[in-house]
């Protein structure tokens, strides 16, 4: 109980107004940490600037610092546009919003408005892609991902009834096919009917939750849905990123969620989840890895 009280007191301390300063600081921390797993030398200026903004806190309020950060990210995006993934673009958009916000006389309102729109639009396009690709509607994308992506091995074993050795064989078949560039020889993969059904159900669940997040953030006229937007976003983050941990994306969604929310209670959930992310996000995968070691010794 004492620990909970201390935790709550700490969150209250962090959330002392103006909250937009906290959001700017959190953004700076994310900028310093994100992308360190696929380091490029062109990232060095933005990392140094983020470090300077963290060490010398008045810099966080300086429009020129955010403008310079925005410039660094835009240059990086233009340079590596074809290899960057979704959330790296989102970081650039968010930094541009931060730059505009600190120039304006109403920083909180600028951050809040744009956070809502950026979250809504990114989920709108993510949902649109599920229809455009077609591989979601028949479940084939998730089915193959369960069979080949080692990050989803936990799901394939628990939901699909596959065993780890079958999954390893599937990966081996694909790797050999790709490495030998045997493009004219189709290869059969081992699966189960249950895996196919689960993939289809999860595909439609993903379309539903992403579509609902998009609609709830963008369509303010749908009052009931709009008021539930934070719960939908939190539901998406918890159900998706515990299965496929994408720390950088989830953390940015939490920061953007934090500034646009009106309820102090939900704001604390956003902040709490963000702070505890390095613990709760890899936890299911960690437990699964431990169980594998204990029961299968692999």
């Amino acid at each position, binding site marked *: 109980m004492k620990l909970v009280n201390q935790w709550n007191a700490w969150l209250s301390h962090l959330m002392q107004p103006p909250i937009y300063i906290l959001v700017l600081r959190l953004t700076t921390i994310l900028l310093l940490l994100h992308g360190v797993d696929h380091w490029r030398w062109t990232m060095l200026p933005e990392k140094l600037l983020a470090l300077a903004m963290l060490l010398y806190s008045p810099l966080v309020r300086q429009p020129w610092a955010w403008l310079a950060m925005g410039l660094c990210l835009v240059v990086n995006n233009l340079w590596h546009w074809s290899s960057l993934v979704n959330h790296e673009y989102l970081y650039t958009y968010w930094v541009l919003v931060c730059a505009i916000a600190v120039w*304006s006389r109403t920083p909180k309102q600028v951050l809040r408005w744009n956070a809502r729109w950026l979250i809504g639009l990114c989920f709108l396009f993510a949902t649109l892609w599920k229809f455009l690709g077609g591989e979601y509607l028949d479940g084939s994308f998730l*089915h193959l991902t369960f069979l080949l992506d080692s990050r989803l091995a936990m799901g394939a074993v628990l939901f699909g009834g596959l065993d780890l050795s079958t999954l390893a064989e599937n990966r081996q078949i*694909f790797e050999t096919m790709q490495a030998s560039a045997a493009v004219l020889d189709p290869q*059969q993969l081992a699966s189960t009917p249950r895996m196919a059904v689960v993939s289809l159900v999860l595909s439609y669940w993903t379309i539903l939750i992403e579509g609902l997040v998009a609609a709830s953030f963008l369509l303010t006229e749908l009052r009931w849905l709009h008021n539930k937007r934070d719960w939908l976003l939190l539901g998406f983050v918890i159900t998706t990123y515990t299965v496929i941990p994408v720390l950088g994306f989830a953390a940015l969604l939490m920061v953007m969620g934090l500034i646009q929310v009106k309820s102090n209670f939900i704001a604390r959930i956003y902040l709490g989840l963000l702070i505890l992310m390095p613990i709760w996000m890899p936890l299911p995968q960690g437990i699964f890895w431990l169980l594998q070691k204990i029961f299968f010794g692999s």
Partner: protein
Amino acid sequence: MILKYSLLKFLKTGAVPLLLTTVALRQIILVHTAGLSPWHGGGFGMFASIDRDERRVVTTQLIDCSQTSSFLLTKVMADYPGLLSQDTYTHISTFPTEAGLHRMGKKLLSLESQSLIAELYATNREKGCDSKLKLQPWRLVYDGESIAYKPITAPVEVQP
């Protein structure tokens, strides 16, 4: 004054969402017209398609007067890191435009590269046979039972 106010309002409320929308629409168009992988380009197509760049293959064949020799670009990259970098290969497989494939083919055939492909090309030439390099990008597909590769674009033929 009104113009300045409108511009400021646009900057504060519409500029960045509009930028996101423009980049995302551009990505959708490039995926459907130029073979860009849905996973990249800022269109939020990650985890929506099997066609991620890491799973693509670019086949490379040298066609001479009597036979066709196939080469693995991953092996070329490993054997001649100065000739073809991982970044170049990633870019080409993610966004395999005709111009990009052509540029890569020319590089592979250049005599300065001293690669096996260039050596074989030079040998053929000495024998009086003008061979050509055929490059083609492929994407992975899955029908619920088997995985197979499907061409993304028509093959590109390159001569030095």
